[in-house]
């Protein structure tokens, strides 16, 4: 079980942030500029996985359709751009808002079910949306659609530069993680974690259980939508595949791998999975085999994810 108090100390936070800020310079110096792109991708998926972790780890709601919100965010940016709106300060908040709205609708229905049924109903909604976007021929249908360019950033920043984009993503992730830390340690977050432990008791004490769970679901949906907006920008295209169940599965894998209910579980998991994918696919054509074996070993030997290992090691 993850500990209740999870505050990244200012010192650790500052060191990590400094490392992340310095990373592109180091990569550039080594002539490995390509890694800046990978790191940005990791941070985007860290945001998406962390949002899932809020629902799954802190709220105990195993959502198997989280990629739906990722896809909705991505498509919002793409469709707005198609309509001529390319300003990031409009498109990105819009992506967040549309995904949050979708989460509110889906959550209102899904949160009436429990455990396994919740897994399946969230999956069902994501698959519905997947097929809706497959059928939208105006927006590329099955193949998806390319973006004309990256969103236009304010303050004269140029998003088409990978370096600028990296720092924008880093700023968003850092802000999001800071907010999440505040959230899970606030009254709302404590109530959410208590509901995960004993819903009936929280109901009896008089907490608005359904509303708290729904609020967490909506916040997570919005954050995933923002991650989706970034995914669309980085890849330069959107496709229904972003919403397919294997994408939801892969977000879940990231959280489980990093540590369910650990504040930084999503970040660590996204980094582990994407780095392993990148490394193994460079090594062999059949990279999914060693990846599968690694994941299997992780389940069998690192029971609650990488961060639980670290905690166990620290506490003896």
């Amino acid at each position, binding site marked *: 079980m993850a500990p209740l108090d999870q505050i990244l100390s200012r010192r650790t936070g500052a060191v990590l942030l400094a490392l992340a800020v310095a990373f592109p310079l180091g990569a550039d110096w080594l002539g490995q500029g390509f890694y800046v792109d990978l790191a940005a991708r990791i941070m985007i998926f860290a945001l998406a996985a962390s949002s899932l972790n809020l629902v799954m780890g802190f709220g105990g709601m195993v959502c198997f359709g989280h990629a739906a919100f990722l896809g909705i965010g991505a498509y919002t940016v793409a469709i707005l751009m198609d309509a001529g709106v390319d300003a990031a300060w409009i498109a990105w908040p819009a992506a967040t808002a549309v995904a949050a709205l979708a989460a509110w609708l889906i959550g209102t229905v899904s949160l009436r079910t429990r455990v396994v049924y919740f897994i399946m109903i969230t999956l069902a909604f994501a698959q519905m949306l997947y097929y809706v976007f497959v059928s939208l021929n105006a927006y590329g249908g099955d193949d998806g659609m390319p973006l004309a360019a990256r969103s236009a950033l304010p303050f004269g920043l140029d998003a088409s530069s990978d370096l600028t984009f990296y720092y924008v993503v880093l700023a968003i992730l850092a802000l999001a993680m800071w907010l999440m830390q505040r959230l899970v340690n606030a009254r709302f977050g404590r109530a959410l974690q208590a509901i995960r432990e004993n819903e009936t008791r929280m109901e009896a004490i008089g907490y608005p259980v359904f509303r708290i769970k729904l609020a967490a679901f909506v916040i997570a949906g919005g954050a995933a939508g923002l991650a989706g907006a970034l995914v669309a920008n980085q890849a330069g295209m959107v496709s229904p595949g972003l919403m397919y169940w*294997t994408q939801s599965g892969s977000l879940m894998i990231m959280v*489980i791998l990093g540590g*369910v209910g650990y504040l930084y579980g999503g970040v660590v998991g996204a980094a582990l999975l994407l780095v392993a994918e990148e490394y193994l696919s460079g090594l062999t054509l059949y990279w999914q*085999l060693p990846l*599968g074996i690694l994941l299997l070993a992780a*389940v069998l030997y690192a029971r609650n994810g990488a961060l639980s290992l670290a905690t166990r090691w620290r506490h003896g």
Partner: protein
Amino acid sequence: MSTVIEAALNGVQFGLMLFLLAAGLTLVFGIMDMINLAHGSLYMFGAYLTAALVEPTGSFLLAMLVALLATAAIGMLLEMTVLRTLYQRDHLSQVLATFALILIGNEVVRMIWGPQPRRLALPELFSGPVDLAGIQYPSYRLLVIGVGLAVALLLYLVVARTRGGMWVRAGASNREMATVMGVDIKRLFTLVFGLGALLCAVAGALLGPLLSVQVGMGESILILAFVVVVIGGIGSIRGALAGSLMVGMVDTVGRTLVPGALGTVFSPSVASNLGPTLASILIYVLMAAVLFWKPQGLFPARG
């Protein structure tokens, strides 16, 4: 009229194949409380093994029988080595582990048989159509319906009428009590898993000539099988049969009849595009509706 009947027959045929997958899945889910995403991989193995064995054996039937036994053996081996350790773990660990098994399974198939889809030819005897009261219907699909019905009946008899089946039902409704009453749960689980794998292989072999045999074929059908399991009620064979026929019908009827019906309202190109989408969406709407009104599924196994 004839298209309606043909669509209905296709629906039954697809539904029965879904049932073969869902039956094993619902038992594993119901008895062992285990989410097995790798169930679709066994289906893929069944299809690939049949496709690979048709040439050396020279007979579809023989190839299929060998593939069935081999897949059942793979399933039991998997249960004894990896899955057994996961029963006591939470659902999330099971999801991660079986997702890993999907990756491994896909890659092993790709390493052995290559990335290209394989064609599995129709058995010679059933390559032509038959005349059903004026409707030309492929005899192979009729065979699939026949085999599907026979297996469903057999499964029903085994589960409802034999001692082993009684253990399975006891395990599904209350695992602790079944153990206390002296059921060797460990061996039972292995056997149930082998049976589930065998049924997967039957579906894989039979659907092989109709769909293409390719890597990833398990993932798309797996989710449909889960939908069936949830609609029918986890752990219930009867529910799995009802659910799979419903899903098979909705899918096939939506694909073939909805475009025609829409064609009267929209332009043909819009209708032909919207039909399959609506069919796919309808399946999930069906599931969401069932869960909304009957959260335990249509035939809950646990009382």
